[in-house]
């Protein structure tokens, strides 16, 4: 097994990361785009999604697919409702002041994380995948003098991982359709473009905000439900996705959905590929520095266009 198979395998693993990352980051980006606030607690909503998925799977029992499908519906709804409640009780009352919102959501981060620690506990717990066939990937190569097909050892990907990639893609198309084609999407875009004007036209901006905050958190939770059969549910699992989602949203251009998806692919794929060849810590150092420098020198994002 040479360089080629390594690269393709890393790319597929990277695509799984990218798919979940895109969901999480689009949630963060949606909130920033429409509400102009940064939600530091976003990673905790992701974590909650995974933990709730574990609870749902435990309670239902039976075939793993049953619990998984139930979690896929229940976790985003519960998390979304929690987030909307947080929006109404906290963010609305501080009038979405950008800096105070960050401080308040830092507080929310610790509250959610520590309450989970107190109830769910410090253990990492797995959720069984609904199906787990392995798909052998063929590899063509020269065998001495003959060209032929080989199936090297370990050279396969689970069908579930492929499902994650497609499911995330489908949800992202759904988000796009909602924003572009539905009335609620129109209301969101109007609120994003000009809050005061939207208010003047009788758009219930407060309800739009609560909804957007809920949808943003729900997308993170959905991403977590998809990933939890591959990783495990743990009360600290929200830290890393938050950081990565930040990186993606900033590189993609704050608040731009296509830019965010593009950046998620870029970061997800390069994260998978880089960590095959470099130390993951070094990769993370470079990524965080990149984000800092992008914000300083290209605040419109790497993929964004200058607007003003």
């Amino acid at each position, binding site marked *: 097994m040479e360089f080629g198979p390594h690269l393709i395998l890393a790319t597929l693993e990277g695509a799984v990361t990218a798919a979940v990352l895109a969901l999480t980051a689009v949630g963060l980006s949606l909130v920033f785009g429409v509400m102009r606030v940064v939600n530091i607690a976003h990673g905790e909503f992701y974590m909650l999604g995974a933990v709730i998925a574990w609870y749902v799977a435990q309670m239902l029992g039976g075939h793993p697919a049953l619990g998984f499908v139930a979690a896929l519906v229940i976790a985003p709804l519960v998390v979304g409702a929690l987030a909307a409640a947080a929006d109404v009780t906290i963010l609305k009352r501080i009038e979405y002041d950008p*800096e105070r919102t960050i*401080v308040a959501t830092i*507080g929310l981060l610790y*509250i959610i994380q*520590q309450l989970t620690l107190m109830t769910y506990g410090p253990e990492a717990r797995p959720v069984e995948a609904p199906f787990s066939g392995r798909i052998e990937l063929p590899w063509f190569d020269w065998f001495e003098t003959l060209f032929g097909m080989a199936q090297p050892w370990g050279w396969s990907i689970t069908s579930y991982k492929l499902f994650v990639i497609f499911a995330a893609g489908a949800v992202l198309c759904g988000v796009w359709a909602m924003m572009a084609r539905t009335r609620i999407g129109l209301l969101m875009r109007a609120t994003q473009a000009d809050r005061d004007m939207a208010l003047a036209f009788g758009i219930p901006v407060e309800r739009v905000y609560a909804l957007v905050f809920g949808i943003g958190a729900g997308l993170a939770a959905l991403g977590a439900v998809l990933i939890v059969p591959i990783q495990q549910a743990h009360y600290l699992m929200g830290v890393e996705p938050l950081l990565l989602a930040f990186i993606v949203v900033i590189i993609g251009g704050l608040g731009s959905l296509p830019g965010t998806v593009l950046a998620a692919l870029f970061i997800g794929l390069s994260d998978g590929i880089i960590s095959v060849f470099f*130390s993951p810590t070094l990769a993370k150092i470079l990524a965080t520095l990149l984000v800092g420098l992008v914000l300083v020198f290209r605040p419109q994002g790497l993929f964004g266009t200058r607007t003003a």
Partner: protein
Amino acid sequence: MSMGGRVLGLHLGLLVVLFALQFVLPAYHHGNIARIMVLASYAVGYNILFGYTGLLSLGHALFFAAGMYGMGLTIQHAGFTPAPALIAGILAGALVAGGLALLALRTSGVAFMIVTLMFAQAGYLTILYFGEYTRGDEGFVIQQAQRVLWGIDLSDPTARYFAAWGLFSVCFLLSLWLVQSRFGRTLIAIRENEERVRMLGYDTYAHKLGAMVVSGTISAAAGAFYGLLFGYAGATFGSVQYSIFPLLWVLLGGAGTVLGPFVGTLFMFYLIDLSSGVTSAYMLIAGVALVLLTLFAPQGLTGEVRRRLWKGLP
């Protein structure tokens, strides 16, 4: 007594009380107060940038850790004695603060917060990456023999209390003087209305740069002393949590007041101390405090005193 006299009296009074306390406190609280004074010095540094200049940094752990490792690594690997090691730590903090300021001050508002967060995170990861020297998360102990400063053994509780008191007194009085000086008053004005300050002929960029370097240097001094007095340096002190702590302390005690950082550190330290006896999820207290403060008391404890009772409190 004149206005300025009363202000000076109040602040010197706190230092006198803290000095006297060490003769009466039981051992447990004696150790706590020493720790609180060092952490409060960190908060004093944070307050200069956040409370007085209006720049909310989410990356001060970078400066605290720069001081701690600047001190610890030179003792551990370069064979420095405590005095030059402390200076090395403080200088490292000043340099890092200056460097970050040059970049981060090109942004403002939310972008400034994220940029400081990202660079601090890169710094934290760098500590982990060079685990061979820093021992990463595990950290390293600074031996008792390496902690003798001018013949004084800083691992001794009394000496440690004195050193912590000395550090806090210097930082505290420096900030009291600074915010009443010409420079400090300009910083306050920048916090209130930066564009107006610029159009009064002040170089606001240079002022913010100065504020960030002073703030970072004080934070680094606190980090260097913390490592030396308690004999340990670890990567945790460079993590996001240690950037959030000074924000929390200053918000609780009152941003933009000289007393606020100490009051906030004292309260939060004991709140967490008490609750960690009950649950391992003691950071819940910090979270609840942050949310309640933003909702109901953005001025903090000392800020409320100033608003209701003593308008001229610096």
